[in-house]
């Protein structure tokens, strides 16, 4: 496609196509969208973050990432749709316009590019990063067990061959460390949403401990509102709650770290589950998934705007 209007959002794309999409979106929206390279993956691919901003300096910001687990293709596809949705809604949707008039949005569409490339070319079921593990023939780390939040505790594996291998140390993966450095350097991120697939859940911290977060009541109420908005489109029903109470104990998770950094509105999604295809969600589900998730994202972003802290 020559422009992002002609980009086919209803099918899955390779990493090259997504990189190209990002560059087109920036070129078409020079006043609002820029591309920041926050680091590079183990294999040297750029870790691109799209910044949506209408001006100002170091404004309070919202972070959204998709695809930290590479095989969850509907997340990268939804992230691409979100990027276009943001630029096309600004000036038309009063709620999104109000958000962007006061806050910036950062969107990392391919959070684990080596893994994503690998799913397209070598192993569709690959989940982890692609860094070799010394002393093991098994490759990669689960980047959602690699954060410095209860790192090494229950709910993560110390075996390099496990799908939930936590890595040799917290932030050992450049894909994780780059976000850590960016978040710390920015210092003004107010909401952090990490998007996974599948199983239809909206979760907030913690995963590594049963101790409730200080903002449990507010996060619970916000999650309820977000999934209610999500369900209003196609009736998709989500479960919600803290990670440890809703699914299982998981240490070293992304949003546990972000919450402990002071980012109150830290959430993680598990997107649509048809009960038939698992990670191989048919491409005709991409747009409905993205559309309904957008409503939940808007609820979180709108709440963040209206409840400064």
């Amino acid at each position, binding site marked *: 496609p020559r422009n992002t209007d002609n980009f086919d959002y209803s099918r899955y794309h390779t990493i090259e196509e997504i990189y190209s999409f990002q560059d087109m979106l920036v070129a078409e929206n020079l006043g609002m969208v820029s591309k920041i390279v926050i680091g590079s993956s183990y294999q040297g691919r750029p870790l691109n973050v799209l910044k949506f901003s209408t001006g100002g300096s170091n404004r309070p910001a919202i972070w959204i990432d998709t695809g930290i687990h590479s095989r969850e293709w509907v997340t990268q596809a939804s992230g691409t749709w979100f990027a276009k949705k943001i630029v096309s809604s600004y000036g038309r949707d009063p709620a999104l316009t109000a958000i962007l008039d006061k806050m910036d949005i950062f969107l990392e569409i391919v959070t684990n590019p080596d893994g994503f490339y690998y799913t397209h070319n070598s192993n569709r079921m690959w989940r982890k990063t692609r860094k070799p593990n010394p002393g093991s023939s098994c490759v990669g780390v689960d980047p959602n067990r690699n954060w410095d939040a209860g790192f090494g505790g229950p709910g993560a594996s110390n075996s390099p061959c496990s799908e939930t291998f936590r890595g040799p140390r917290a932030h050992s993966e450049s894909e994780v460390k780059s976000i850590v450095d960016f978040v710390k350097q920015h210092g003004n991120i107010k909401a952090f949403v990490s998007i996974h697939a599948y199983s239809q859940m909206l979760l907030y911290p913690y995963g590594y401990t049963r101790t409730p977060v200080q903002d449990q009541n507010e996060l619970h109420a916000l999650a309820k509102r977000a999934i209610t908005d999500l369900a209003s489109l196609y009736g998709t029903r989500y479960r919600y709650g803290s990670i440890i109470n809703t699914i*299982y104990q998981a240490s070293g998770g992304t949003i546990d770290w972000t919450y402990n950094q002071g980012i109150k509105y830290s959430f993680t999604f598990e997107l649509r589950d048809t*009960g038939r*295809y*698992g990670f*191989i969600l048919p*491409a005709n589900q991409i747009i409905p998934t993205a559309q309904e998730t957008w409503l939940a994202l808007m609820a979180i972003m709108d709440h963040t705007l209206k409840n400064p802290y």
Partner: protein
Amino acid sequence: KKTFEGDQVLRIVPKDEVQLSLIKDLEDMIELELDFWKDVTDVDTPVHIRVPSHGLQSTRMYLESQGIDYSVMIEDLQVILDEEQEEMDSAARVAA
């Protein structure tokens, strides 16, 4: 390129705490190379496991011997992946 001919995804709904524990034990059976798409959480919450073709017989025998009901969510993973690839290729051809 790794292929998944004959791999199945099984759907198991644990009926009680005993079944929950027995299904969890599968996670430790490393030789089966099971891939938990949807992990063990609570009673009545479905678990989805991709079972490589070489581990299908053992896994089914284990489940049946423990009286754990299961259904096949994906009969042959590679068939679905081939369809996905064909859809991508076809869309790319149309776009070109």
